[in-house]
């Protein structure tokens, strides 16, 4: 049913529809509304779950690890500093093959402390063994949560899933969302029934010491599983489309790329702005397009390569920066494409700096002018040392 909802409400609703038995999280802006809504659902008797109000994000992630290990579907969500505090457990959860689902409300990292949006938090944990998907809008986020559980919990997969939603822009934005019914979600998402769990009838030891004779195989197994996810995820996407009529669950989305001369590559809510700019520039006769990365991990290298095969100029928009190198997505797009392609990297929107249509237009034109691996967009020169000014 179509509803006009705040993003966080919609995400909490989506999580509720998946019937998690244990929820644990710790408040941090801009994630807070999600946990508050879930707590209210439980308080109202609308959701049969244990909500554990922990003393830190490290413990939130540990609680859901413990509950998921008992075979109970679990949910957590966090942002920024919270994700950093969880980081140790985030890696651990993937290594233990626990298909927990987390929503990360993307926010900048301190210092300086900043509650506004960029994607530095989740991008910094891209190597942790979690499937990572980025939502462009609230509908997509809802769909990715529901499909995320299904993908992660496949016995062939058994990997955790992080659904990344831009803080404030999505979490606090009001949009119309087509919310599936409980019946539909129950038909789509079967109860969680893991191949291994903590069970007194069949005692197992989980989380053993893995020395040099076994460790690398555990990493290889995750790596190969990630490769499988590149096929499994679009299959679940097809099922999702059949059931709900939407194409949200996919590796990439191509927007007016067919004949594009310049294409931007981006993740998350900025793709909406980029699409608007594309429509306007197209009216003026410019051949521009967008490659939206929905699934960042596993990285859909082949799909990216194919989508950009005929595009001569590419600009990569990064809402993160690997300080001392370039934006993270830039490196990966560059590695996925042929050497003769002109690929530029743009770092923008850090710490909530607005990404305006004008900035996007300028990025389109800069991508065609000269190749630069790491251009910061829309800097305030008056805040910079003289020799740093642009």
């Amino acid at each position, binding site marked *: 049913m179509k509803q006009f909802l705040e993003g966080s409400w919609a995400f909490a609703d989506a999580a509720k529809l998946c019937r998690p038995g244990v929820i644990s999280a710790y408040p941090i802006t801009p994630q807070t509304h999600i946990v508050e809504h879930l707590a209210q659902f439980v308080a109202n008797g609308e959701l049969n779950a244990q909500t554990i109000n922990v003393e830190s994000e490290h413990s939130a992630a540990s609680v859901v690890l413990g509950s998921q290990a008992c075979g109970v579907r679990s949910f957590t969500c966090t942002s920024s500093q919270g994700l950093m505090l969880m980081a140790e457990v985030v890696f651990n959860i993937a290594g233990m093959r626990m298909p927990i689902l987390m929503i990360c409300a993307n926010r900048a990292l301190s210092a300086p402390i900043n509650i506004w949006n960029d994607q530095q938090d989740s991008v910094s944990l891209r190597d942790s063994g979690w499937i990572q998907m980025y939502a462009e809008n609230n509908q997509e986020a809802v769909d990715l949560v529901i499909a995320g559980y299904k993908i992660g919990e496949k016995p062939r997969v058994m990997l955790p899933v992080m659904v990344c939603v831009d803080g404030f822009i999505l979490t606090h934005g009001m949009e119309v969302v087509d919310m599936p019914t409980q019946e539909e979600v129950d038909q789509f998402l079967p109860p969680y029934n893991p191949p291994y769990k903590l069970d007194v009838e069949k005692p197992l030891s989980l989380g053993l*010491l893995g020395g040099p004779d*076994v460790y690398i195989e555990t990493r290889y197994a995750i790596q190969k599983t990630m490769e499988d996810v590149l096929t499994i995820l679009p299959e679940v996407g097809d099922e999702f489309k059949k059931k709900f009529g939407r194409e949200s669950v996919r590796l990439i989305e191509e927007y007016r790329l067919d004949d594009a001369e310049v294409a931007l590559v981006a993740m998350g809510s900025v793709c909406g702005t980029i699409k608007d700019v594309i429509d306007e520039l197209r009216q003026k006769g410019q051949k521009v397009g967008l490659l939206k990365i929905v699934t960042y991990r596993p990285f859909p290298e082949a799909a990216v390569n194919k989508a950009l095969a005929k595009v001569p100029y590419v600009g990569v928009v990064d809402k993160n920066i690997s300080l001392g190198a370039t934006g993270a997505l830039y490196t990966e797009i560059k590695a996925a494409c042929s050497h003769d392609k002109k690929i530029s990297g743009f770092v923008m929107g850090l710490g909530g700096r607005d990404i305006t249509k004008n900035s996007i237009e300028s990025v389109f034109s800069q991508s065609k002018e000269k190749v630069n691996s790491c251009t910061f967009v829309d800097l305030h020169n008056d805040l910079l040392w003289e020799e740093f000014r642009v």
Partner: protein
Amino acid sequence: MSERGHFEEHCFVSGHTACAGCGQSMAARLVADVAGKNTIVTNATGCLEVFSTLAPQTAWGTPWIHSLFENAAAVASGVEAALIHLGKLDSIRVISQGGDGGTADIGLQALSGMLERGHDILYVCYDNEAYMNTGIQRSGLTPFDAHTTTSPRGTHSSGNPKQKKPLVEICAAHHIPYAATASVGNPRDVQTKVKKALDIRGPKFIQIHVPCPLGWGSEPVDTIKIAKLAVATGLFPLVEYEYGRLLRVTKLPSPKPVEEYLKLQGRFKHLLKNAAELKKVQEVAQKNIEYYGLNSKA
């Protein structure tokens, strides 16, 4: 002996790689056997985890999970929440366990959260008085004047300058139903306390003193003797708290001099010829005796 047969008798079996005379392995077996099969165990990183579960082997006959160093209490909270959700908490017990470092230092926050939230979990701290797994570094539970690799004796040092953190008081201060200390030197007492704890619903805490021959510089054969002496000198008092109140202590009508305990351990050997330092250690014991009323007539 069939592998299964082995697990039929005990929930924590031999064949693991603990050092000879390891007090922690003995205490872990005492705890596991009292708890029995219908128990789920969460374990912090540390010696116990390392020597009992070197993949692909395990010494555990109950479901057992290790995640990280400081989160055993939080993982246990999740296990307990899952058991409530599944409607199984009536028949299954949850035990969370870790070393002194994993409990009193890096894991204290998660433990406090677990106690405060009131989970139905027994937390067991195996106190061997240092970070043994990483090679005998000082922890918040290392005793006064003990030599460790990060509180070494030297011309300007007589070992660890601080006294043990009052861990059982910290736990009791959460006003949980039960908080106690025990010693592997008195196995029956350990088992009585574990059984008592497991019969209570809500958060429980037991700190078990477990000598470590390698870390303490003692003979493996002396583990039990040393554990008993720690109690007999007043250096490791055996106490029980209920809802924040001290209710019972193991009395010491005639406490032994601390030298008897210290002289069996290399970590204290620098004290034996140092009357001034010896006196300070004796004062630590004396303070314990007075604080807990160990020598008063009941």
